[in-house]
């Protein structure tokens, strides 16, 4: 790879395949993600979007293919190593620390990001930056009045908001968001879109979302998956008018 090409993309996958038994959830996917762009990933249910994201973040085992981050091959690296290398994500099925308070949830994410080998004799409460970061994100996701509440007793929508917060705190270079807006209320959703737009400044975002208004509005580029493969990709307008996409996913009226 020449230096000029390197700058062109941060994340690249080559011929990715994920299979479960005989069933291939993702096949033949190659893509190059350029720095600073927001990618929308859409496709019917079960098309393999989440699985692709799992493959990129190290949660799914590849039966074929390779993944590169900043031209470093990360195919064999476990999820935490990818996070350190600058790849953060949120989950479609909420993954939070239910028994802990909302603030502790965020503090943990901040802790994981800030220090890899903190001295163990210092109480975690004493690290100022960690608390500050957690506090800041708590505001951003609009849960400031729930800081001391245990995360498991939040309502579904508020848990979804926390899910986004956790992903943000690792301040990744590449951020993968799996249906961050699902279940998030109407009012918060608007704020959340704003938030996503803001955090996408200066980083690469891959966003899975079924809310077409949002996807079409904020994506720089849209990727459509069908049956484990990439069906089409391009700008919102081209995608919207692509007949294959309409029959497979969008439906006729819009």
């Amino acid at each position, binding site marked *: 790879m020449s230096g000029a090409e390197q700058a062109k993309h941060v994340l690249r996958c080559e011929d990715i395949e994920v299979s479960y038994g005989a069933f291939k959830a993702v096949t033949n996917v190659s893509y190059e993600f350029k720095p600073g762009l927001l990618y929308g990933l859409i496709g019917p249910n079960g098309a393999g979007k989440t699985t692709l994201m799992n493959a990129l973040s190290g949660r799914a085992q590849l039966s074929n293919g390779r993944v590169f981050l900043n031209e470093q091959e990360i195919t064999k690296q476990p999820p935490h190593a990818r996070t350190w290398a600058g790849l953060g994500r949120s*989950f479609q099925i909420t993954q939070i620390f239910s028994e802990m308070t909302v603030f502790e949830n965020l503090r943990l994410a901040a802790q994981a990001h800030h220090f890899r080998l903190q001295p163990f004799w210092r109480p975690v409460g004493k690290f100022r930056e960690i608390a500050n970061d957690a506090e800041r994100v708590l505001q951003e996701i609009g849960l400031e009045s729930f800081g001391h509440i245990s995360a498991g007793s939040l309502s579904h929508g508020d848990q979804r908001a926390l899910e986004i917060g956790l992903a943000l705190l690792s301040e990744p270079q590449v951020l993968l968001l799996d249906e961050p807006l699902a279940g998030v209320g109407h009012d918060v959703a608007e704020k959340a879109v704003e938030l996503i737009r803001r955090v996408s400044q200066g980083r690469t975002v891959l966003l899975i979302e079924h809310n077409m208004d949002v996807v079409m509005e904020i994506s720089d580029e849209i990727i459509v998956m069908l049956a484990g493969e990439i069906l089409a990709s391009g700008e919102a307008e081209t995608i919207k008018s692509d007949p294959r996409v309409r029959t497979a996913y969008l439906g006729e009226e819009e």
Partner: protein
Amino acid sequence: MSTIVIGLSMGMLLFLLAAGLTLIFGMLRVINFAHGSLYMLGAYLAFQVVNVTGIFWAGLIAAPIIAAVVGALMERIALRPVYNRDHVYQLLLTFGFILVIDEAVRILWGLEYKQMYPPELLSGAIEMFGSSVPSYRLFIIGFGAAVSAALFFMLDRSRYGMIIRAASGDPEMVRTLGINVSLVRTGVFSFGAGLAALGGAAAGPLFPIELGMGFNIIIDSFIVVIIGGLGNIRGAVMAALLIGMTRALGYSYAPSWVDFLTFILLIGTLILRPEGLFSRKGRTA
């Protein structure tokens, strides 16, 4: 050749010991440490019934029934309040059961060993491949196979099995479908207790009936259940036969290494197939 027959019978016996455990483990997600005690209770009950009636089969039938009632009571009184708690608390609870049941057996039957013999019909030995194989061993093979088939159909093929498996994951949701989950749970636990006792009754003619007999089988049963995959009847049968065969071969070539071999087998399995030999894994994200 006769080693294989004996290995088969050892395996089936292991399966009978473990069947109740895998049921309760797999279906209720309850780690029933008192399984061994119920097994012992079964043996003592069978002894008592045989002693009174003189009929082996009466013991084999009555012991599980009585133990099932005991199991139902245990479930109603003690287990019900702790389902929603961290599973590890069941360790404390069922450990308490061990002590209570053992004490009860001690009070009821005293400290002396008890004995049971195979029924007249099965008391001889049959010449086979140049050895004399006790007929009771052959009976165990057949009986184990029958029990495993019955259990398999009940759990994997019938609607009860479906309900039980669903309730093990999300009892509330099963309730919304109009199904009485607590009844199902009591039924499963009681059935599992009965199976444990059946194992004890069937093992009675082969081993000394003594206090502490339950303690020895617990680890064996857990190994069968884990290698087979939690709550997986087919897996449990396979695992039991695998261990039975390993042991039989071990006894014929290096008896002092038999326990060692069993654990090596277990460790190997868990390293190669972390979720047990015969189970499938769901997704995490």
